[in-house]
Protein backbone atom coordinates (compact mmCIF):
# COMPACT_ATOMS: atom_id res chain seq x y z
CA UNK A 1 0.00 0.00 0.00
CA UNK A 2 0.97 3.59 -0.17
CA UNK A 3 2.53 3.21 -3.57
CA UNK A 4 0.45 4.41 -6.51
CA UNK A 5 -0.22 1.90 -9.25
CA UNK A 6 -1.52 4.59 -11.56
CA UNK A 7 -1.17 8.32 -11.44
CA UNK A 8 -2.12 10.88 -14.04
CA UNK A 9 -1.62 14.61 -13.77
CA UNK A 10 -3.46 17.00 -16.02
CA UNK A 11 -3.62 14.28 -18.61
CA UNK A 12 -4.96 15.73 -21.83
CA UNK A 13 -5.25 14.38 -25.33
CA UNK A 14 -6.92 16.41 -28.01
CA UNK A 15 -8.23 13.83 -30.42
CA UNK A 16 -10.40 13.79 -33.46
CA UNK A 17 -14.09 12.88 -33.18
CA UNK A 18 -14.09 14.53 -29.76
CA UNK A 19 -12.97 11.33 -28.10
CA UNK A 20 -10.14 13.05 -26.30
CA UNK A 21 -9.58 13.56 -22.61
CA UNK A 22 -9.16 16.78 -20.76
CA UNK A 23 -7.08 17.45 -17.65
CA UNK A 24 -7.59 14.09 -15.98
CA UNK A 25 -6.04 13.72 -12.50
CA UNK A 26 -6.25 10.18 -11.29
CA UNK A 27 -4.63 8.29 -8.44
CA UNK A 28 -5.05 4.56 -8.00
CA UNK A 29 -3.18 3.07 -5.06
CA UNK A 30 -1.63 -0.39 -5.38
CA UNK A 31 -3.95 -3.13 -4.19
CA UNK A 32 -7.13 -1.35 -5.18
CA UNK A 33 -9.88 -2.25 -7.61
CA UNK A 34 -10.71 0.94 -9.44
CA UNK A 35 -13.77 1.21 -11.63
CA UNK A 36 -13.54 3.69 -14.45
CA UNK A 37 -17.05 4.59 -15.49
CA UNK A 38 -18.64 6.54 -18.23
CA UNK A 39 -20.78 6.16 -21.30
CA UNK A 40 -19.26 5.10 -24.59
CA UNK A 41 -17.08 7.80 -26.07
CA UNK A 42 -16.45 9.54 -22.75
CA UNK A 43 -12.71 8.96 -22.90
CA UNK A 44 -12.28 5.77 -20.88
CA UNK A 45 -10.55 3.86 -23.62
CA UNK A 46 -8.42 6.85 -24.58
CA UNK A 47 -7.18 7.19 -21.01
CA UNK A 48 -6.37 3.51 -20.81
CA UNK A 49 -4.53 3.56 -24.11
CA UNK A 50 -2.39 6.47 -22.92
CA UNK A 51 -1.41 4.41 -19.88
CA UNK A 52 -0.12 1.72 -22.24
CA UNK A 53 1.62 4.18 -24.57
CA UNK A 54 -0.66 3.28 -27.46
CA UNK A 55 -1.58 6.95 -27.55
CA UNK A 56 0.45 9.98 -26.56
CA UNK A 57 -0.93 12.77 -24.39
CA UNK A 58 -0.81 16.30 -25.74
CA UNK A 59 -0.37 17.64 -22.20
CA UNK A 60 0.09 16.30 -18.71
CA UNK A 61 1.69 13.05 -17.72
CA UNK A 62 0.88 9.56 -16.59
CA UNK A 63 2.85 7.10 -14.56
CA UNK A 64 2.11 3.43 -14.07
CA UNK A 65 3.76 1.41 -11.29
CA UNK A 66 5.92 4.45 -10.71
CA UNK A 67 7.21 4.44 -14.30
CA UNK A 68 6.69 7.06 -16.97
CA UNK A 69 3.98 5.95 -19.36
CA UNK A 70 5.96 6.87 -22.44
CA UNK A 71 9.65 6.68 -21.61
CA UNK A 72 9.44 3.47 -19.59
CA UNK A 73 6.55 1.84 -21.33
CA UNK A 74 8.32 -1.45 -22.01
CA UNK A 75 8.94 -1.97 -18.30
CA UNK A 76 5.34 -1.06 -17.58
CA UNK A 77 4.07 -3.51 -20.12
CA UNK A 78 6.23 -6.28 -18.70
CA UNK A 79 4.47 -5.94 -15.38
CA UNK A 80 0.97 -5.16 -16.63
CA UNK A 81 -1.81 -7.20 -18.18
CA UNK A 82 -4.22 -5.56 -20.61
CA UNK A 83 -7.53 -6.51 -22.10
CA UNK A 84 -8.47 -4.16 -24.93
CA UNK A 85 -12.08 -3.11 -25.18
CA UNK A 86 -12.48 -3.99 -28.78
CA UNK A 87 -9.94 -6.51 -29.91
CA UNK A 88 -9.59 -9.15 -32.54
CA UNK A 89 -7.40 -12.17 -32.63
CA UNK A 90 -5.97 -13.79 -35.74
CA UNK A 91 -9.03 -15.68 -37.04
CA UNK A 92 -7.26 -18.88 -38.01
CA UNK A 93 -5.40 -19.38 -34.74
CA UNK A 94 -6.78 -21.59 -32.00
CA UNK A 95 -7.04 -20.41 -28.41
CA UNK A 96 -3.94 -22.38 -27.46
CA UNK A 97 -1.98 -20.86 -30.34
CA UNK A 98 -3.07 -17.35 -29.42
CA UNK A 99 -2.04 -17.83 -25.79
CA UNK A 100 1.26 -19.41 -26.83
CA UNK A 101 1.99 -16.58 -29.19
CA UNK A 102 1.18 -13.88 -26.65
CA UNK A 103 3.25 -15.55 -23.94
CA UNK A 104 6.15 -15.81 -26.39
CA UNK A 105 6.11 -12.01 -26.18
CA UNK A 106 6.72 -12.29 -22.43
CA UNK A 107 9.80 -14.38 -21.74
CA UNK A 108 8.97 -15.27 -18.15
CA UNK A 109 5.39 -16.45 -18.14
CA UNK A 110 4.80 -19.04 -15.43
CA UNK A 111 3.25 -22.09 -17.14
CA UNK A 112 0.82 -23.26 -14.45
CA UNK A 113 -1.05 -19.99 -14.16
CA UNK A 114 -2.62 -20.27 -17.56
CA UNK A 115 -3.92 -23.77 -16.88
CA UNK A 116 -5.73 -22.50 -13.80
CA UNK A 117 -7.35 -19.63 -15.69
CA UNK A 118 -8.36 -21.85 -18.58
CA UNK A 119 -10.10 -24.21 -16.15
CA UNK A 120 -11.70 -21.35 -14.37
CA UNK A 121 -13.35 -19.88 -17.43
CA UNK A 122 -13.81 -23.19 -19.25
CA UNK A 123 -11.93 -21.73 -22.22
CA UNK A 124 -12.05 -23.61 -25.50
CA UNK A 125 -8.44 -23.90 -26.57
CA UNK A 126 -8.71 -26.10 -29.62
CA UNK A 127 -11.06 -24.08 -31.82
CA UNK A 128 -9.92 -21.27 -34.16
CA UNK A 129 -10.97 -17.77 -33.20
CA UNK A 130 -13.35 -17.39 -36.13
CA UNK A 131 -15.49 -20.21 -34.72
CA UNK A 132 -15.72 -18.72 -31.25
CA UNK A 133 -18.50 -16.48 -29.98
CA UNK A 134 -17.73 -13.00 -28.66
CA UNK A 135 -17.96 -14.30 -25.11
CA UNK A 136 -15.55 -17.14 -25.73
CA UNK A 137 -13.05 -14.80 -27.34
CA UNK A 138 -13.45 -12.46 -24.40
CA UNK A 139 -12.48 -15.31 -22.08
CA UNK A 140 -9.27 -15.83 -24.02
CA UNK A 141 -8.67 -12.10 -23.71
CA UNK A 142 -9.04 -12.40 -19.95
CA UNK A 143 -6.69 -15.37 -19.72
CA UNK A 144 -3.96 -13.55 -21.64
CA UNK A 145 -4.34 -10.49 -19.41
CA UNK A 146 -3.78 -12.53 -16.26
CA UNK A 147 -1.61 -15.43 -17.42
CA UNK A 148 1.74 -13.89 -16.60
CA UNK A 149 0.71 -12.91 -13.06
CA UNK A 150 1.16 -9.17 -13.60
CA UNK A 151 1.21 -6.63 -10.80
CA UNK A 152 -1.51 -4.57 -12.45
CA UNK A 153 -4.24 -5.44 -14.88
CA UNK A 154 -5.99 -2.86 -17.01
CA UNK A 155 -9.25 -4.15 -18.39
CA UNK A 156 -11.39 -2.25 -20.87
CA UNK A 157 -15.01 -3.43 -20.56
CA UNK A 158 -13.94 -6.85 -19.29
CA UNK A 159 -17.37 -8.41 -18.91
CA UNK A 160 -18.77 -7.48 -22.30
CA UNK A 161 -20.08 -10.58 -24.01
CA UNK A 162 -19.75 -12.77 -20.91
CA UNK A 163 -22.79 -14.64 -19.66
CA UNK A 164 -23.86 -14.00 -16.04
CA UNK A 165 -22.14 -17.15 -14.80
CA UNK A 166 -18.85 -16.07 -16.32
CA UNK A 167 -19.30 -12.49 -15.10
CA UNK A 168 -19.56 -13.97 -11.65
CA UNK A 169 -16.43 -16.01 -12.20
CA UNK A 170 -14.70 -12.85 -13.38
CA UNK A 171 -15.66 -11.01 -10.20
CA UNK A 172 -14.27 -13.87 -8.15
CA UNK A 173 -11.06 -13.80 -10.16
CA UNK A 174 -10.69 -10.07 -9.50
CA UNK A 175 -11.18 -10.56 -5.77
CA UNK A 176 -8.67 -13.44 -5.62
CA UNK A 177 -6.19 -11.50 -7.66
CA UNK A 178 -6.42 -8.45 -5.41
CA UNK A 179 -6.17 -10.65 -2.33
CA UNK A 180 -2.82 -11.84 -3.74
CA UNK A 181 -1.66 -8.24 -4.00
CA UNK A 182 -2.68 -7.28 -7.52
CA UNK A 183 -4.21 -4.01 -8.64
CA UNK A 184 -7.15 -3.80 -11.03
CA UNK A 185 -8.16 -0.86 -13.20
CA UNK A 186 -11.31 -1.66 -15.11
CA UNK A 187 -13.61 0.37 -17.25
CA UNK A 188 -17.31 -0.09 -17.71
CA UNK A 189 -20.34 1.84 -18.81
CA UNK A 190 -22.47 0.32 -16.08
CA UNK A 191 -22.01 1.04 -12.40
CA UNK A 192 -24.06 -2.01 -11.59
CA UNK A 193 -21.37 -4.11 -13.14
CA UNK A 194 -18.49 -2.83 -11.03
CA UNK A 195 -20.20 -2.15 -7.73
CA UNK A 196 -19.50 -5.64 -6.41
CA UNK A 197 -15.80 -5.58 -7.20
CA UNK A 198 -14.63 -1.99 -7.21
CA UNK A 199 -13.43 -0.17 -4.11
CA UNK A 200 -13.67 3.21 -5.77
CA UNK A 201 -15.07 4.49 -8.98
CA UNK A 202 -14.11 7.42 -11.15
CA UNK A 203 -16.74 8.81 -13.45
CA UNK A 204 -15.77 10.36 -16.77
CA UNK A 205 -17.92 12.43 -18.97
CA UNK A 206 -16.95 14.17 -22.20
CA UNK A 207 -13.30 13.51 -21.48
CA UNK A 208 -13.36 14.95 -17.98
CA UNK A 209 -13.17 13.16 -14.67
CA UNK A 210 -16.39 14.22 -12.97
CA UNK A 211 -15.90 12.58 -9.60
CA UNK A 212 -13.99 9.88 -7.79
CA UNK A 213 -15.80 8.26 -4.89
CA UNK A 214 -15.98 5.00 -3.02
CA UNK A 215 -18.89 2.82 -4.00
CA UNK A 216 -20.32 3.21 -0.48
CA UNK A 217 -20.22 7.00 -0.67
CA UNK A 218 -21.88 6.92 -4.01
CA UNK A 219 -24.64 4.75 -2.64
CA UNK A 220 -24.88 7.02 0.40
CA UNK A 221 -25.66 10.02 -1.73
CA UNK A 222 -29.20 9.36 -0.62
CA UNK A 223 -30.82 9.60 -3.96
CA UNK A 224 -34.34 8.14 -3.76
CA UNK A 225 -36.77 7.32 -6.51
CA UNK A 226 -40.37 8.33 -5.98
CA UNK A 227 -43.40 7.11 -7.89
CA UNK A 228 -46.33 9.44 -7.39
CA UNK A 229 -49.91 8.73 -8.43
CA UNK A 230 -52.33 11.66 -8.49
CA UNK A 231 -56.09 12.05 -9.00
CA UNK A 232 -57.33 11.59 -12.54
CA UNK A 233 -57.28 14.77 -14.57
CA UNK A 234 -54.94 16.68 -12.24
CA UNK A 235 -51.80 15.62 -14.10
CA UNK A 236 -51.13 18.98 -15.73
CA UNK A 237 -51.54 20.85 -12.50
CA UNK A 238 -49.16 18.48 -10.69
CA UNK A 239 -46.63 18.58 -13.46
CA UNK A 240 -46.47 22.36 -13.30
CA UNK A 241 -45.90 22.14 -9.56
CA UNK A 242 -43.21 19.46 -9.82
CA UNK A 243 -41.27 21.42 -12.38
CA UNK A 244 -40.69 24.30 -9.99
CA UNK A 245 -40.07 22.26 -6.87
CA UNK A 246 -36.54 22.31 -5.44
CA UNK A 247 -34.71 19.11 -4.55
CA UNK A 248 -36.16 16.85 -7.21
CA UNK A 249 -34.90 16.02 -10.65
CA UNK A 250 -35.42 13.73 -13.53
CA UNK A 251 -39.22 14.00 -13.68
CA UNK A 252 -41.04 11.68 -16.07
CA UNK A 253 -44.78 11.42 -16.53
CA UNK A 254 -47.11 8.71 -17.77
CA UNK A 255 -50.66 9.97 -17.56
CA UNK A 256 -51.37 10.55 -13.88
CA UNK A 257 -48.29 8.70 -12.70
CA UNK A 258 -45.05 10.58 -12.13
CA UNK A 259 -41.57 9.38 -11.40
CA UNK A 260 -38.77 11.51 -10.10
CA UNK A 261 -35.61 11.44 -8.05
CA UNK A 262 -35.32 13.21 -4.72
CA UNK A 263 -31.83 14.57 -4.26
CA UNK A 264 -32.33 17.11 -1.46
CA UNK A 265 -34.37 17.14 1.72
CA UNK A 266 -37.53 15.13 1.86
CA UNK A 267 -39.58 17.51 4.01
CA UNK A 268 -39.43 20.37 1.54
CA UNK A 269 -40.58 18.02 -1.19
CA UNK A 270 -43.45 16.77 0.98
CA UNK A 271 -44.43 20.33 1.83
CA UNK A 272 -44.53 21.16 -1.84
CA UNK A 273 -46.73 18.17 -2.55
CA UNK A 274 -49.09 18.90 0.36
CA UNK A 275 -51.60 20.90 -1.64
CA UNK A 276 -51.85 18.37 -4.45
CA UNK A 277 -54.40 15.56 -4.94
CA UNK A 278 -51.93 12.72 -4.23
CA UNK A 279 -53.46 9.23 -4.27
CA UNK A 280 -50.36 7.13 -3.73
CA UNK A 281 -46.68 7.69 -3.16
CA UNK A 282 -43.98 5.04 -3.33
CA UNK A 283 -40.39 5.80 -2.36
CA UNK A 284 -37.32 3.60 -2.60
CA UNK A 285 -33.55 3.93 -2.64
CA UNK A 286 -32.23 4.46 -6.12
CA UNK A 287 -29.87 1.77 -7.35
CA UNK A 288 -26.40 2.80 -8.27
CA UNK A 289 -27.06 3.18 -11.93
CA UNK A 290 -29.65 5.80 -11.13
CA UNK A 291 -27.22 7.60 -8.88
CA UNK A 292 -24.79 7.45 -11.71
CA UNK A 293 -27.32 8.86 -14.14
CA UNK A 294 -28.29 11.65 -11.78
CA UNK A 295 -24.63 12.55 -11.46
CA UNK A 296 -24.48 12.78 -15.17
CA UNK A 297 -27.56 14.87 -15.55
CA UNK A 298 -26.49 17.01 -12.62
CA UNK A 299 -23.48 18.22 -14.52
CA UNK A 300 -25.51 18.85 -17.62
CA UNK A 301 -26.58 22.36 -16.66
Amino acid at each position, binding site marked *: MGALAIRTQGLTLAYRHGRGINDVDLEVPAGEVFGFLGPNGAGKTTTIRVLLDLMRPTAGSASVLGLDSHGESLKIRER*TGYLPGDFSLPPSLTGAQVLDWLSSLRPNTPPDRREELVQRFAVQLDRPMKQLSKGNRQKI*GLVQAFQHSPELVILDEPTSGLDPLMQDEFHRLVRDYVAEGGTVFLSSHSLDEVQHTADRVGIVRDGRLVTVETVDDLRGRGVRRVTLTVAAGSGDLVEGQLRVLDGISDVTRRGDVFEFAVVGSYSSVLAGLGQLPVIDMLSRAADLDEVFLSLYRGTDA
Partner: protein
Amino acid sequence: MIAQRFPVFAQGVRDRRKSLVWWSVGVTVYIGVIAAMWPSIRGAAGLSDIMSQLPQPILDLMGASDYDISTGAGYVSGELFGFMIPIFILILTIGAGAAAIGGAEERGTLDLLLSHPISRRQVLLQSAALVAVEALLFGVVIVVTLAIATPLADLQIAFVYSIGAAFGIVFLGVALGWIALAVGAATGSRSLALASTGSLAAVTYLLGSLSGLVDFLHNAKWISPFFYANDGAPLVHGYTWWHGLVLAGVGVMALVIGIIRFDRRNLSN
Protein backbone atom coordinates in the same frame (compact mmCIF):
# COMPACT_ATOMS: atom_id res chain seq x y z
CA MET B 1 14.72 -20.09 -30.39
CA ILE B 2 13.70 -17.76 -33.19
CA ALA B 3 10.18 -17.74 -31.78
CA GLN B 4 11.53 -16.52 -28.45
CA ARG B 5 13.82 -13.84 -29.78
CA PHE B 6 11.71 -12.69 -32.72
CA PRO B 7 8.11 -13.47 -31.84
CA VAL B 8 6.56 -11.16 -34.43
CA PHE B 9 8.70 -12.58 -37.20
CA ALA B 10 8.03 -16.15 -36.09
CA GLN B 11 4.29 -15.57 -35.95
CA GLY B 12 4.39 -13.97 -39.39
CA VAL B 13 6.12 -17.04 -40.80
CA ARG B 14 3.48 -19.29 -39.24
CA ASP B 15 0.68 -17.11 -40.59
CA ARG B 16 2.02 -17.01 -44.12
CA ARG B 17 3.45 -20.50 -44.34
CA LYS B 18 0.58 -21.95 -46.32
CA SER B 19 0.25 -19.10 -48.77
CA LEU B 20 4.01 -19.10 -49.32
CA VAL B 21 3.92 -22.75 -50.30
CA TRP B 22 1.20 -21.99 -52.85
CA TRP B 23 3.11 -19.01 -54.16
CA SER B 24 6.18 -21.17 -54.66
CA VAL B 25 4.18 -23.83 -56.46
CA GLY B 26 2.53 -21.21 -58.68
CA VAL B 27 5.77 -19.50 -59.64
CA THR B 28 7.48 -22.83 -60.31
CA VAL B 29 4.66 -23.93 -62.59
CA TYR B 30 4.59 -20.59 -64.39
CA ILE B 31 8.34 -20.61 -65.03
CA GLY B 32 8.10 -24.29 -66.00
CA VAL B 33 5.42 -23.63 -68.60
CA ILE B 34 7.32 -20.73 -70.13
CA ALA B 35 10.48 -22.82 -70.23
CA ALA B 36 8.69 -25.81 -71.72
CA MET B 37 7.50 -23.73 -74.63
CA TRP B 38 11.02 -22.67 -75.56
CA PRO B 39 12.01 -25.68 -77.69
CA SER B 40 9.00 -25.21 -79.99
CA ILE B 41 9.33 -21.43 -80.15
CA ARG B 42 13.00 -21.67 -81.01
CA GLY B 43 12.02 -24.05 -83.78
CA ALA B 44 9.61 -21.58 -85.27
CA ALA B 45 11.41 -20.10 -88.21
CA GLY B 46 12.10 -16.44 -88.54
CA LEU B 47 11.48 -15.27 -85.00
CA SER B 48 14.78 -13.52 -85.01
CA ASP B 49 14.04 -12.06 -88.44
CA ILE B 50 10.76 -10.63 -87.24
CA MET B 51 12.42 -9.15 -84.21
CA SER B 52 15.17 -7.59 -86.27
CA GLN B 53 12.63 -5.89 -88.48
CA LEU B 54 10.81 -4.21 -85.64
CA PRO B 55 11.67 -0.54 -85.16
CA GLN B 56 13.86 0.27 -82.19
CA PRO B 57 11.15 2.16 -80.21
CA ILE B 58 8.87 -0.87 -80.34
CA LEU B 59 11.66 -3.09 -79.09
CA ASP B 60 12.28 -0.61 -76.30
CA LEU B 61 8.65 -0.67 -75.30
CA MET B 62 8.74 -4.45 -75.22
CA GLY B 63 11.84 -4.27 -73.11
CA ALA B 64 13.52 -6.35 -75.74
CA SER B 65 16.30 -4.10 -76.95
CA ASP B 66 18.93 -5.37 -74.54
CA TYR B 67 19.04 -8.92 -75.71
CA ASP B 68 18.33 -11.30 -78.49
CA ILE B 69 14.97 -12.90 -77.95
CA SER B 70 16.01 -15.77 -80.19
CA THR B 71 18.31 -17.15 -77.50
CA GLY B 72 16.99 -19.15 -74.53
CA ALA B 73 18.25 -16.68 -71.96
CA GLY B 74 16.86 -13.77 -73.94
CA TYR B 75 13.51 -15.46 -74.31
CA VAL B 76 13.18 -16.21 -70.59
CA SER B 77 14.42 -12.75 -69.75
CA GLY B 78 11.75 -11.15 -71.92
CA GLU B 79 8.89 -13.46 -71.09
CA LEU B 80 9.47 -13.67 -67.36
CA PHE B 81 11.73 -10.99 -65.99
CA GLY B 82 10.41 -8.12 -68.07
CA PHE B 83 6.97 -8.18 -66.55
CA MET B 84 5.40 -11.23 -64.95
CA ILE B 85 8.04 -12.13 -62.39
CA PRO B 86 8.28 -8.53 -61.10
CA ILE B 87 4.47 -8.42 -60.89
CA PHE B 88 4.38 -11.67 -58.95
CA ILE B 89 6.95 -10.63 -56.40
CA LEU B 90 5.37 -7.20 -55.96
CA ILE B 91 1.97 -8.70 -55.26
CA LEU B 92 3.64 -10.91 -52.67
CA THR B 93 5.83 -8.36 -50.91
CA ILE B 94 3.60 -5.29 -51.15
CA GLY B 95 0.77 -7.43 -49.79
CA ALA B 96 2.93 -8.72 -46.96
CA GLY B 97 4.31 -5.28 -46.15
CA ALA B 98 0.92 -3.58 -46.10
CA ALA B 99 -0.64 -6.33 -43.99
CA ALA B 100 2.10 -6.44 -41.35
CA ILE B 101 1.29 -3.24 -39.44
CA GLY B 102 -1.39 -1.36 -41.37
CA GLY B 103 -3.34 -4.59 -41.70
CA ALA B 104 -2.89 -5.55 -38.05
CA GLU B 105 -4.11 -2.14 -37.00
CA GLU B 106 -7.14 -2.33 -39.27
CA ARG B 107 -7.98 -5.81 -38.04
CA GLY B 108 -7.61 -4.69 -34.43
CA THR B 109 -4.81 -7.06 -33.42
CA LEU B 110 -2.08 -4.43 -33.05
CA ASP B 111 -3.33 -3.05 -29.72
CA LEU B 112 -3.00 -6.37 -27.98
CA LEU B 113 0.41 -7.02 -29.51
CA LEU B 114 1.77 -3.63 -28.46
CA SER B 115 0.41 -3.95 -24.94
CA HIS B 116 3.07 -6.62 -24.51
CA PRO B 117 6.69 -5.71 -23.77
CA ILE B 118 7.77 -5.25 -27.36
CA SER B 119 8.65 -1.90 -28.89
CA ARG B 120 7.03 -0.52 -32.00
CA ARG B 121 10.46 -0.49 -33.59
CA GLN B 122 10.88 -4.21 -32.97
CA VAL B 123 7.49 -4.92 -34.51
CA LEU B 124 8.42 -2.95 -37.60
CA LEU B 125 11.90 -4.44 -37.97
CA GLN B 126 10.70 -8.00 -37.51
CA SER B 127 7.97 -7.36 -40.06
CA ALA B 128 10.60 -5.99 -42.44
CA ALA B 129 12.63 -9.17 -41.94
CA LEU B 130 9.54 -11.19 -42.78
CA VAL B 131 9.06 -9.29 -46.05
CA ALA B 132 12.73 -9.78 -46.91
CA VAL B 133 12.60 -13.49 -46.18
CA GLU B 134 9.51 -13.91 -48.35
CA ALA B 135 11.26 -12.10 -51.20
CA LEU B 136 14.35 -14.22 -50.70
CA LEU B 137 12.30 -17.40 -50.79
CA PHE B 138 10.80 -16.20 -54.04
CA GLY B 139 14.31 -15.64 -55.42
CA VAL B 140 15.40 -19.13 -54.38
CA VAL B 141 12.39 -20.62 -56.14
CA ILE B 142 13.34 -18.74 -59.32
CA VAL B 143 16.96 -19.89 -59.19
CA VAL B 144 16.09 -23.51 -58.45
CA THR B 145 13.39 -23.70 -61.11
CA LEU B 146 15.64 -22.15 -63.72
CA ALA B 147 18.50 -24.48 -62.71
CA ILE B 148 16.24 -27.46 -63.31
CA ALA B 149 14.62 -26.09 -66.46
CA THR B 150 17.82 -24.92 -68.15
CA PRO B 151 19.16 -28.37 -69.14
CA LEU B 152 15.68 -29.81 -69.72
CA ALA B 153 14.60 -27.10 -72.17
CA ASP B 154 18.11 -26.26 -73.34
CA LEU B 155 17.75 -22.64 -72.25
CA GLN B 156 21.48 -22.03 -71.93
CA ILE B 157 21.21 -19.77 -68.93
CA ALA B 158 24.36 -19.39 -66.88
CA PHE B 159 23.70 -20.38 -63.26
CA VAL B 160 25.52 -17.33 -61.91
CA TYR B 161 23.48 -15.04 -64.12
CA SER B 162 20.25 -16.60 -62.92
CA ILE B 163 21.33 -15.87 -59.34
CA GLY B 164 22.05 -12.25 -60.25
CA ALA B 165 18.74 -11.87 -62.08
CA ALA B 166 16.88 -13.39 -59.14
CA PHE B 167 18.63 -11.00 -56.78
CA GLY B 168 17.49 -8.07 -58.88
CA ILE B 169 13.93 -9.30 -58.45
CA VAL B 170 14.42 -9.91 -54.73
CA PHE B 171 15.77 -6.38 -54.24
CA LEU B 172 12.79 -4.99 -56.17
CA GLY B 173 10.37 -6.93 -53.96
CA VAL B 174 12.11 -5.93 -50.75
CA ALA B 175 12.29 -2.23 -51.68
CA LEU B 176 8.59 -1.90 -52.54
CA GLY B 177 7.51 -4.30 -49.79
CA TRP B 178 9.33 -2.14 -47.26
CA ILE B 179 7.75 0.99 -48.70
CA ALA B 180 4.32 -0.61 -48.24
CA LEU B 181 5.28 -1.65 -44.71
CA ALA B 182 6.44 1.88 -43.91
CA VAL B 183 3.30 3.51 -45.31
CA GLY B 184 1.14 1.07 -43.33
CA ALA B 185 3.11 1.77 -40.16
CA ALA B 186 3.01 5.52 -40.69
CA THR B 187 -0.71 5.68 -41.43
CA GLY B 188 -2.26 2.60 -39.86
CA SER B 189 -4.04 1.86 -43.09
CA ARG B 190 -3.48 -1.29 -45.09
CA SER B 191 -5.53 -0.04 -48.02
CA LEU B 192 -3.57 3.20 -48.22
CA ALA B 193 -0.31 1.26 -48.12
CA LEU B 194 -1.48 -1.04 -50.92
CA ALA B 195 -2.86 1.74 -53.08
CA SER B 196 0.08 4.14 -52.75
CA THR B 197 2.79 1.53 -53.24
CA GLY B 198 0.90 -0.13 -56.05
CA SER B 199 0.48 3.18 -57.87
CA LEU B 200 4.12 4.01 -57.30
CA ALA B 201 5.08 0.73 -58.97
CA ALA B 202 2.69 1.27 -61.87
CA VAL B 203 3.72 4.85 -62.56
CA THR B 204 7.45 4.21 -62.33
CA TYR B 205 7.09 1.14 -64.52
CA LEU B 206 5.30 3.17 -67.15
CA LEU B 207 7.81 6.04 -67.00
CA GLY B 208 10.67 3.59 -67.16
CA SER B 209 9.38 1.80 -70.23
CA LEU B 210 8.56 5.07 -71.98
CA SER B 211 11.96 6.57 -71.27
CA GLY B 212 13.48 4.98 -74.34
CA LEU B 213 10.68 6.25 -76.54
CA VAL B 214 9.96 9.76 -75.45
CA ASP B 215 12.78 12.23 -75.56
CA PHE B 216 11.82 14.33 -72.60
CA LEU B 217 11.41 11.19 -70.50
CA HIS B 218 14.87 10.07 -71.40
CA ASN B 219 16.10 10.24 -67.81
CA ALA B 220 12.94 8.81 -66.31
CA LYS B 221 14.35 5.31 -66.19
CA TRP B 222 16.58 6.38 -63.32
CA ILE B 223 13.59 6.71 -61.03
CA SER B 224 12.13 3.36 -61.96
CA PRO B 225 12.77 0.52 -59.49
CA PHE B 226 12.26 -1.89 -62.38
CA PHE B 227 15.30 -0.42 -64.09
CA TYR B 228 17.44 -1.27 -61.07
CA ALA B 229 15.99 -4.76 -60.93
CA ASN B 230 16.22 -5.77 -64.52
CA ASP B 231 18.18 -3.34 -66.66
CA GLY B 232 20.52 -4.81 -69.22
CA ALA B 233 18.92 -8.27 -69.07
CA PRO B 234 20.80 -9.75 -66.09
CA LEU B 235 19.93 -13.24 -67.26
CA VAL B 236 21.89 -12.63 -70.46
CA HIS B 237 24.63 -10.23 -69.41
CA GLY B 238 24.78 -10.53 -65.61
CA TYR B 239 23.34 -8.32 -62.90
CA THR B 240 24.72 -4.86 -62.25
CA TRP B 241 25.16 -5.29 -58.52
CA TRP B 242 25.22 -1.63 -57.56
CA HIS B 243 21.66 -1.45 -58.85
CA GLY B 244 20.75 -3.76 -56.00
CA LEU B 245 22.32 -1.34 -53.56
CA VAL B 246 20.12 1.46 -54.91
CA LEU B 247 16.99 -0.62 -54.30
CA ALA B 248 18.17 -1.71 -50.87
CA GLY B 249 18.95 1.91 -50.01
CA VAL B 250 15.48 3.04 -51.03
CA GLY B 251 13.97 0.27 -48.90
CA VAL B 252 16.07 1.16 -45.88
CA MET B 253 15.17 4.83 -46.24
CA ALA B 254 11.48 3.93 -46.30
CA LEU B 255 11.93 1.85 -43.15
CA VAL B 256 13.67 4.67 -41.32
CA ILE B 257 10.89 7.12 -42.16
CA GLY B 258 8.33 4.45 -41.27
CA ILE B 259 9.90 3.86 -37.85
CA ILE B 260 10.02 7.57 -37.06
CA ARG B 261 6.38 8.09 -38.00
CA PHE B 262 5.17 4.88 -36.35
CA ASP B 263 7.01 5.65 -33.13
CA ARG B 264 5.36 9.03 -32.73
CA ARG B 265 1.80 8.47 -33.66
CA ASN B 266 -1.38 7.53 -31.81
CA LEU B 267 -2.49 4.06 -32.74
CA SER B 268 -6.11 3.70 -33.67
CA ASN B 269 -8.20 1.02 -32.07
